[in-house]
């Protein structure tokens, strides 16, 4: 996997296309229409998923999450970036151009 498009705090990200999702008692299940693969997000992952329904800067997202989950800034940023990059590898999120956001 190329790291060229790695997501950082300045990236603006949004949910990928061609996905069907559903809420299950706080978890989120996703299916990629193209690959037919299934994915599951825990409640925190689900909250992050909800925040990128529309394009959003990662730094902004981290601020919201820090408050909601009472977690330290560094830890929050680290975890959020790790998840977003994981999701990006599966084409579940995409990076949008800053100017388009």
């Amino acid at each position, binding site marked *: 996997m190329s790291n060229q498009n790695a997501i950082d705090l300045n990236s603006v990200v949004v949910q990928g296309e061609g996905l*069907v999702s*559903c809420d*299950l*008692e*706080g978890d989120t*299940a996703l*299916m990629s*229409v193209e690959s*037919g693969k299934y994915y599951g997000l825990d409640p925190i992952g689900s909250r992050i998923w909800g925040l990128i329904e529309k394009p959003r800067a990662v730094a902004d997202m981290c601020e919201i999450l820090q408050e909601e989950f009472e977690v330290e800034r560094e830890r929050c940023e680290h975890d959020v970036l790790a998840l977003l990059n994981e999701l990006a590898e599966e084409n579940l999120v995409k990076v949008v151009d800053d100017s388009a956001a």
Partner: protein
Amino acid sequence: MDKAEIHHYKAYGLNIESALPCPELAPSRGVPDVRVRYGAVPDSLADATVKGWYYQARGNRLLLIIEDVARYLVSDGREIIIERAPGSRDNDVRLYLLGSAFGGLLHQRGVLPLHGSAIEVNGGAVVFLGPSGLGKSALAGAFYKRGYRVMTDDVCVLSISEEGILVVLPGYPQLKLWAEVARSLGENSLELGQVDPLVEKHGLPLRKGFCETPLPLRRLYVLTTAETQKFELAPLKGMEKLTALLNNTYRFCFLDGQGGKVLNFKQCATLAQHAAVSRVIRPGAPLLLDELADLLERDLAL
């Protein structure tokens, strides 16, 4: 064989007009939803998007190729054309018709066929899910012996509305049991016909013990087995529930990514959101049927 003779049955919530006699099905006088007829069936589907060793599918067309038995072409949820192999037996042709061919047809009709058996408990449907060999039919048989009515065996059809109204549709009045299980339930297996040439399963006609009306879903049990000494029973939540339902979708392999799997995902998700699902872990052999039935009876009484 009288070529002109047409039979009318009901199964899986459908009225069926069939050129092939299916004595295990209940008769029906309703307007047919599905037509089963003999005709020429191709040996491949052009541009199939799904291909397996005995099936090919594209959109609302499914082709099944069962060597020495028949080829089946299932279309638009309304028609099944059968081309029999020379010398095939009615029994074998019916086995794949009522299993795989109807499984594909039910997906085409937009209802959800699950791999499971169902019984009636106090006006609601209780469903036992699990892959072949885990004791779904045997368990339904044990409840049948206790006076419960059976709704379906092996293929359990759910009608799911977007608002989450879940209804189980009756299959047909027969239980398929291993000879040993039939004997343990007090049935003389020699009097029952063998339904599958590959495994020694026998058809037990249900008559009065069959519930032929659709019922609201009450509970789903997923049967699993493990290296354990005693039964374990636990409610499933969230993703676990969804995964169990996806894994127990009947003939999931026929579904393509674009249409079939998306619909299946949405149906299983709605089901997971609205239904109570528990997992039953049972010890491997022997199949302690009575103990399992006792356990589930107690669980349902809560």
